[in-house]
């Protein structure tokens, strides 16, 4: 029950501009620090760097699905590996073909 409640609140957050975001905009704090929006950086076709993620849903050599507050990020490719994973960021290396929000 509790969990459901939480999720409900987050969904509201997505649509409207929260107070937190307003404050951070006022103080000119970078977005990725203040908000929970994921930041995805790719370096060439070999490396993808995802910040502000929630957890991984699936991890194989061909597909990595990462859950975030703004939907599931799906990265497809070949020979993919997770080079490093911490609670804040995840680095995926391999022959990347596609990055999607599905």
């Amino acid at each position, binding site marked *: 029950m509790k969990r459901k409640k939480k999720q409900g609140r987050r969904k509201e957050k997505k649509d409207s501009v929260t107070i937190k975001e307003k404050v951070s905009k006022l103080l000119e704090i970078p977005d990725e620090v203040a908000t929970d929006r994921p930041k995805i950086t790719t370096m060439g076709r070999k490396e993808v760097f995802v910040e502000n993620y929630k957890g*991984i849903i699936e*991890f*194989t050599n061909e597909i990595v699905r990462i859950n975030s507050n703004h939907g599931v990020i799906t990265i497809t490719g070949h020979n993919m590996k*997770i080079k*490093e*994973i911490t*609670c804040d960021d995840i680095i995926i290396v391999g022959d990347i073909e596609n990055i999607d929000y599905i």
Partner: protein
Amino acid sequence: MLLIRLWHYLKGYVIIIVTGIYAERFINICTRRQILLWDMERLDQRTVRMKMSIRGFKASRTAARKSRCRVRIEAKKGFPYLISRYKKRKGFLAGVVVFAVIIYAMTSIIWYIEITGNNKVGTDVLINQINEMGIYRGAAKRFINPKLVADTLMLKNSELSWVGVEVKGTGLYITVKEGIEPPAIVPYDEPCNVVAKTDGMIISIHAKNGLEMVRKGDTVTKGQVLISGNLESFYPEFGEKQVHAMGEVIARTWYEIKKEIPGKRVTRVRTGKEFNKYSIYFLDFLIPLPSGENPFELFETVTYDKTPVIGNRFRLPFGLTVQNFFEVEEQVTELSSEEARELAQAAAVRELNARIPEDAEVVDQQMQITKENRKEYITVIMECVEDIAMEQEFGGN
């Protein structure tokens, strides 16, 4: 990246294989618990391989239970594991320590001493002098004060004009420069005579200073004044003047020796029995090994080293010294008269040559054999040409 890898190595990590349908769940729980995972790869549908720190591995137990995964360690890597492995190998560790100690000890002593640049001063003289200072092969390097050694050598040897002492690696290099000695100053203000060194017959006399007292063809005896430094004036009222007499007096001299011709010869012959005494040497130190006492009364000894040699040239600085004792006995042999004469002559000539001064030139040699009281005697006379001038102060003998 290298730094991170090094950090992981120092802290130690494990390579684990996670088996289970919910491997992703395991990863999520781990990351949420601040456990760092890296180099993760999917092996097949059910297994994932990853690396994890040691601390993280302990904390991931509950994560494995929650996600119903089986975690298996494939390999343990890093420094802590390396240490724990070597903790068991005590002998190896001791060997490492002993090796380090030996290397340190061996490199802190002098292994060889090299002296260059000396022509007039003998190397053995210099070596003796530095030995007195406590410097020898095997001496501790840090007790050597190069400046002190150089100063001491300079003070002890007036022939040296510069000494450089350098400890380079395990060698002691002494470089020496010898000065040119100043020519001897003739003390003109010290009056003296020139007298004869030995008996002889004058061939030529040439006075550089003073008055010639003898002439060519005169025979002189030892100590006779040849060139006088006392100049008497023709007129006695002017008094006399004393000078430093100098000159060259070449004379014919004779040296004679008389020896008995022996009828027998005593030779020492080895009996064939021998006895060895062993000792170990290291650099210049000798450690005798227990090998008993020498049992012979009359013996000769031969000493030689048995050194391990690497290749053709490199001799190790330690080895075995063998002292070989050979028993000898005296054998008396009768000599024929010819043999005896030859032997006696050779011995006499050898003895005479030692007596004749180096600058003398031998011009003639005579030999005479006489008989007295049933014994034969050989007389060898050598005729030489040499400078017999010798300066002598007035009044002295």
